């Protein structure tokens, strides 16, 4: 027997309790990892190559207030602007589903491909979309989920706009950032609503990254003191502000993470305290045999670490497997285009688990340090 075997046998001596402790740690770490991924996706959205060149322009009052379409040509003439497209949220209902089951945007198909260079759409499908006023393109994940194919007809019932749209799938795009949306021609929206004068927002492509700050300033200045002042910002800044409209969700998730870790600490510390308390006589015997307090502390720390590590492996491992399973990927893609447990998040969860191992061993270690052999033996009586 070596000390490792001794520690292992001690840690697993009460199988049910050890198992429950490991499962508690695993469940908490699963939740912790999930929350961290949510937090990252909300606060640090994934970026593609074109993100640094794209600028979102919206009404300064609110994202929900429309902008006049006449702004488009003015923005297009700003030095450094490569392309401009309207970008209007439709928010229609599909089939018998309640609410808006997937994102739908009205854009300018001719400018769209240049605007998102990382989006892969076959040239013939792009040409077909541009040529078809009622055409639309859908993301691969959305197409697979809804069984959309080229030529499929999609009816969207307007819930925000007072019209319904009859769309034909002209193309299916692949895009790592988001392949769950539908894009259609803004002209069709104008026709359907009978309103050619407004857009939801503008999406602007800069010629290069260095030009972006200047373009933002010029666009903001161009419409200052008009009836439709705008707020131009980088696409990432727009996303962040969009997230902030949901409230201080980062703080909320951070608070939940803290509670999860705190709960996890209590569970593990409680288990270790119980495990050590019921072994006081044995620990006293070990002290009598010549084991020093620091050696007993090392045993307890190792046991605590072992339980936390097993829980971490189980919790993180399950989270990885769970969020990679096709049904979950499909379900999550509605809310998060990418829901990946990065090595950084795994490392953070592992550090939390290691920290728990240490924290959970502190109280028992203090108990053992205070334990005299005589007192320990007295607990036998």
């Amino acid at each position, binding site marked *: 027997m070596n*000390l490792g075997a001794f520690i292992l046998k001690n840690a697993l001596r009460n199988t049910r309790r050890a198992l429950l402790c490991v499962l508690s740690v695993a469940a908490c770490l699963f939740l912790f990892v999930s929350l961290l991924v949510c937090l990252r996706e909300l606060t640090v959205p994934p970026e593609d190559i074109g993100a640094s060149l794209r600028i979102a322009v919206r009404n300064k009052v609110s994202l929900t207030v429309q902008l006049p379409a006449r702004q488009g040509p003015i923005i297009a003439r700003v030095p450094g602007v490569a392309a401009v497209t309207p970008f209007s949220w439709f928010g229609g209902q599909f089939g018998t589903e309640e609410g808006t089951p997937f994102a739908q945007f009205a854009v300018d198909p001719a400018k769209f491909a240049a605007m998102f260079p990382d989006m892969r759409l076959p040239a013939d499908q792009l040409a077909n979309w541009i040529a078809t006023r009622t055409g639309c393109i859908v993301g691969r994940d959305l197409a697979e989920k809804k069984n959309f194919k080229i030529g499929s007809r999609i009816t969207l019932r307007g819930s925000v706009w007072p019209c319904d749209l009859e769309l034909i799938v002209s193309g299916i795009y692949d895009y790592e950032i988001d392949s769950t949306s539908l894009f259609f021609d803004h002209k069709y929206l104008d026709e359907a609503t009978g309103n050619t004068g407004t857009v939801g927002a503008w999406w602007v492509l800069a010629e290069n990254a260095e030009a972006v700050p200047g373009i933002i300033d010029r666009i903001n200045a161009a419409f200052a003191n008009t009836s439709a002042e705008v707020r131009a910002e980088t696409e990432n800044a727009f996303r962040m502000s969009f997230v902030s409209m949901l409230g201080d969700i980062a703080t909320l998730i951070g608070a939940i993470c803290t509670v999860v870790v705190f709960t996890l600490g209590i569970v593990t510390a409680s288990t270790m305290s119980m495990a050590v308390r019921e072994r006081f006589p044995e620990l006293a015997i070990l002290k009598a045999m*010549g084991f020093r307090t620091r050696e007993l502390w090392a045993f307890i720390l190792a046991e605590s670490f072992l339980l936390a590590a097993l829980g971490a492996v189980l919790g993180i491992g399950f989270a990885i497997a769970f969020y990679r399973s096709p049904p979950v990927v499909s379900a999550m893609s509605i809310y998060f285009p990418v829901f990946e447990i990065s090595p950084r998040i795994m490392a953070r969860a592992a550090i939390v688990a290691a920290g728990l191992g240490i924290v959970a061993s502190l109280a028992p270690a203090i108990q053992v340090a205070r334990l005299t052999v005589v007192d320990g033996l007295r607990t036998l009586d």
Partner: protein
Amino acid sequence: MASSDPIIRLKELTKIYQQGEIRVTALDGIDLDIAAGEFVALMGPSGSGKSTLLHIVAGIDRPTRGECWVGDIEVSRLNESQLAEWRNHTIGFIFQTFNLIPVLTAFENVELPLLLTGLAPRRRRELVQTALDIVGLSDRSRHLPRQMSGGQEQRVAIARAIVTDPPILVADEPTGNLDAHSAATVMETLQTLNGSAGKTIVMVTHDPRAASFGSRIIHLEKGELIRESATPPGGGTPA
């Protein structure tokens, strides 16, 4: 066999427990010499201080006053770390409730004190096997404590106590939880260790029959040594 040189020497040994405002004198100026190779039985009513005396001799408790010499070491002057190391080499413990680790086999329980010694695994196995041979339990080495009788458990505890070859064994009511037959077996094992291996044994007991295995019986009462008696040759032979 006992030599005339004391291996344990207690001088004016006093132990006072302060429990709130109450002072309890567990030991009151005990002077006692125990020669190397002696088998001493400490007897007395509950609260007489015999267990406290045993604990101080074994280095797991400290006197309030007085000196406790074991060999040429004043035990009460050692710090906790030194005491731990000293106990590992010098003292073998045997307890009333055996105190084997339930998840370890007999072999592993006996091996425990050797984990501190830095001996190679092979050497440790040899020593454990020898200790189990001495107590007659080689065939039970793979058994867990719950798979053994009380007497067997206590003999495993004795093997654990002697595996590091300490010169002194301290036993606190070693037969207190055993039936008469098992108690006799355990006492015979201790007697053998005293006689053949020359171990100095200090044993606390309430049982006159167990005490009769010792070479000397020391009676304590209210923390004072009140009487000593030598057991007759052949004492301890089961009636």
